[in-house]
C-alpha cells in the first residue's frame, strides 16, 4: 500500500471519530428526463440523496476565535442589516467524494437534521489535498441556496 493511500485511510478513520455533527450530509444528484428541459419543462425530475460515508467534517467559515475557544457565527450581517447564512467549509474523505463528483454539474450537498429539515448547498470552490498524485482529502466550500 502506498504511503498516500495509507494516509487517505487514516483520514477516513479520523473523520469517523469526529463525525457526524449536528446535521448529516448527503450528496444530491438531480436528474431530468423526458419533456423539454431546455425550456424548463422536464417531464420527470428525480432527486436522489446519498449519505456520505464517512461523513465530512464541516464548519461555517465565519467562526472566529475568542478567548477560550471559538465563537460560532451562523449569520452574516449585510450592509443593509439583513442576516444571511454564512458559507461552509467541508473536509471530505477522498473515498466519499471524488473529483469526478465535484465536477459533475448536477451535484449538490444537503444537510439534514434529525427532524428531517434540509438545507441545500451549492459547491462554490474546492481544494484537493494530494500526495504523490493521489487525492487524500478534499476541502469544499459551499453556499446555502437560502442565501440571497
Amino acid at each position, binding site marked *: 500500500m502506498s504511503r498516500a493511500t495509507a494516509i487517505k485511510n487514516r483520514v477516513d478513520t479520523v473523520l469517523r471519530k469526529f463525525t457526524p455533527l449536528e446535521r448529516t450530509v448527503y450528496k444530491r444528484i438531480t436528474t431530468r428526463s423526458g419533456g423539454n428541459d431546455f425550456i424548463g419543462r422536464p417531464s420527470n425530475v428525480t432527486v436522489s440523496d446519498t449519505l456520505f460515508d464517512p461523513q465530512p467534517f464541516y464548519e461555517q467559515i465565519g467562526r472566529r476565535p475568542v478567548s477560550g475557544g471559538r465563537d460560532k457565527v451562523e449569520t452574516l450581517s449585510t450592509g443593509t442589516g439583513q442576516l444571511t447564512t454564512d458559507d461552509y467549509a467541508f473536509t471530505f474523505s477522498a473515498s466519499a467524494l471524488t473529483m469526478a463528483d465535484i465536477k459533475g*454539474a448536477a451535484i449538490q450537498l444537503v444537510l439534514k437534521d434529525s427532524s428531517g429539515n434540509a438545507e441545500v448547498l451549492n459547491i462554490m470552490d474546492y481544494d484537493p489535498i494530494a500526495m504523490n498524485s493521489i487525492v487524500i482529502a478534499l476541502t469544499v466550500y459551499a453556499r446555502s441556496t437560502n442565501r440571497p
Partner: protein
Amino acid sequence: MRQARDSFLMFLKDNLDSSIALHAVRFDVNNPNAALLQNNAVNITFTDPVYHNKVADQPVHIDICHEDELTALSWSRTVWDLMSIRMYTELKDYTSPSSPTQPGGAIFWKDTIRFRSVDSPFYSHLHARLSLYHTLH
C-alpha cells in the same frame, strides 16, 4: 409570459445551426449551473416581465460568450440573420412539450439588435437587450 419565453427559446433552438450552443439562463435551485452564463454559447436570459392588457413586454438578454472573438462576431451575425427574416415568430404553448399548441398570436421584436462588447480578460462577450412583444393568453 411563459409562452413567450418558451416560444422564443424554441424558435432559436429549432432554427440556429446545431454547431451553435444555446443556453437558457434560468435560476433553478436544483441546477446550480443553469443560472450561470456558459462560455462558447449563445446565452438567453429573460428579465423583468411587463404585463399589459394590450401588448405585454418580455425583455430578453442575448449574451454571446466565446473564447474566440471572431466566432462570437460570426454568431452575432447568425442570430441577426435568423431574427431579421420576419421579426416575429408564432406564440406557442409548450405545457406539453412534445405537442405544443398555438393559442393564437405571435411574439415580435423591433428591427434593430444592438450588441455591446463586455470587457473580460477571459473570453469575448457580446451583449444585446431587446423586448419581446406579445399579447397575453
